[in-house]
């Protein structure tokens, strides 16, 4: 992240004191964040973000590199815990449960809030075992037949069943990039999460594989809540119902995707989506 002087910041955020639009929802919120600050050592990366993610909505988070969108996404299932110097302040609740509560079981949290990463990262195991791994370690099944059913359902929901059903015992690493990413999505949904976080899930994929993932996101939103970070504004416009724009660690504007991409309220949002940043 670039370091700006106070004067520069004042200029950048001219006319901005708090998030433009409606970051919080009256009801129907699955995750709520209030006053979230994130620090890497002394350096603050996120500044007082209030943002709700509604049930079964696809929320896109966009912004220039280093704006904190991925950092913010990672706070939602405590991925930042793995970074020693990272501190998170503020409240983040999932269905009313404080996810930073000392009693919160992080492994269980990450089953409830699953994550799909930029590069597909299947385990060096068979296709079947990749999907079966989660249900096994979380003790979701007792019988093989049950596990078979979960694996099949997850692969079907991730729109990859027809391509892999005859080679479930083969290594997942033998699949194409797009297939691997859909397998990772199947692995995530196999443990029936409430929320799926996606951190630039298509940036390593070709346009056709990307189109399939985007189609999948639309289908998944019927059953899951999805928050997606993407560098592609067209992707955000296509897949999401709400869009949040981050800039230098602040949530500048959030609103209906239709509105953000045709008539945003804030100059910073406008400049970003129209390509006026260097």
């Amino acid at each position, binding site marked *: 992240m670039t370091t700006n002087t106070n004067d520069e910041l004042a200029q950048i955020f001219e006319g901005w004191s708090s998030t433009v639009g409606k970051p919080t929802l009256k009801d129907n919120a699955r995750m709520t964040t209030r006053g979230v600050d994130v620090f890497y050592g002394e350096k603050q990366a996120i500044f007082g973000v209030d943002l709700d993610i509604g049930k079964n909505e696809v929320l896109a988070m966009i912004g220039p590199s280093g704006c904190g969108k991925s950092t913010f996404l990672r706070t939602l299932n405590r991925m930042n815990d793995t970074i020693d110097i990272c501190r998170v302040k503020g409240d983040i609740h999932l269905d009313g449960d404080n996810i930073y509560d000392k009693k919160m079981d992080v492994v269980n949290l990450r089953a409830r809030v699953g994550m799909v990463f930029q590069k597909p990262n299947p385990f060096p195991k068979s296709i079947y075992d990749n999907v079966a791994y989660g249900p096994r370690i979380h003790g979701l099944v007792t019988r093989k037949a049950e596990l078979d059913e979960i694996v099949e359902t997850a692969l079907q929901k991730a729109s990859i069943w027809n391509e892999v059903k005859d080679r479930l015992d083969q290594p997942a690493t033998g699949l194409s990039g797009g297939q691997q990413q859909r397998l990772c999505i199947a692995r995530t949904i196999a443990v029936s999460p409430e929320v799926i976080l996606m951190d630039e899930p298509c940036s390593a994929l070709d346009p056709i594989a990307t189109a399939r993932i985007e189609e999948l996101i639309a289908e998944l939103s019927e059953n899951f809540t999805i928050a997606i970070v993407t560098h592609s*504004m*067209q992707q955000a*416009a296509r897949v999401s119902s709400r869009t949040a724009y981050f800039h230098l660690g602040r949530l500048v504007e959030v609103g209906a995707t239709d509105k953000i*991409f*045709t*008539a*945003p*309220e*804030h*100059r910073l*949002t*406008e*400049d970003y*989506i*129209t*390509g*006026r*940043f*260097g």
Partner: protein
Amino acid sequence: MVSITFDKHTSGQFNAELEEARNHLMEMGGIVEQQIEIAFKSLVNVDSELASEAIQMDKDVNKMELKIDKETTQILAKRNPAATDLRFIIAVSKTVNDLERIGDEAVKIAQQAIELSNDGAGPQGYVELRHLGEKVREMVQSSLDSFARLDADSAFEVMQQDKAVDLEYNTAVRTLVTKMMEDPRTITRALNVLWALRALERIGDHAQNISENVIYLVKGKDVRHKKLEKVEETVNR
């Protein structure tokens, strides 16, 4: 609402493409304004030569239409415009359509001038025609000015004028009908004037459309088919 600029894109080429589309639209607007003026003059002076000139000009208008349509299509395909850039492209595209239709209406006026000239009679005395013609020309000019200056207030003023134009058109039609009833020998001529009046009224409608496009571009709100009070709220916001 975010104020509008078309420069400052990271891509200088994109800035240039938007600027070019804007310049061409203004150029087309200039040709159409001139075309209306010549067509109108040909009518009130019953001058078939001027009328032919106005009809000829339609070719230039059509050429500009094709040119700008091509440019906006290219921008949509290559640049994926968003926000003000997107609204600008939509507004340009629709305004081009309205300008082309205004050109067609100007041709209709010129054709009536030729018919009248062939009959060897002038429409002198039809004060309404002159008055309406002036008003409508002003509307077109103001709507294009408001586009050039991205001025929603003056675009709204044009929208307000359209009501007066409609009223004047209806009054003129009634007057002509009365004249036709009084003296059936005037029917042919009066019908020519009626068609010209109708074309002028339609030009006013297109000027109103252009003004609506300007308000959409500047304010980000679609004000078509809205009552004037609602439009005023949008403009003042």
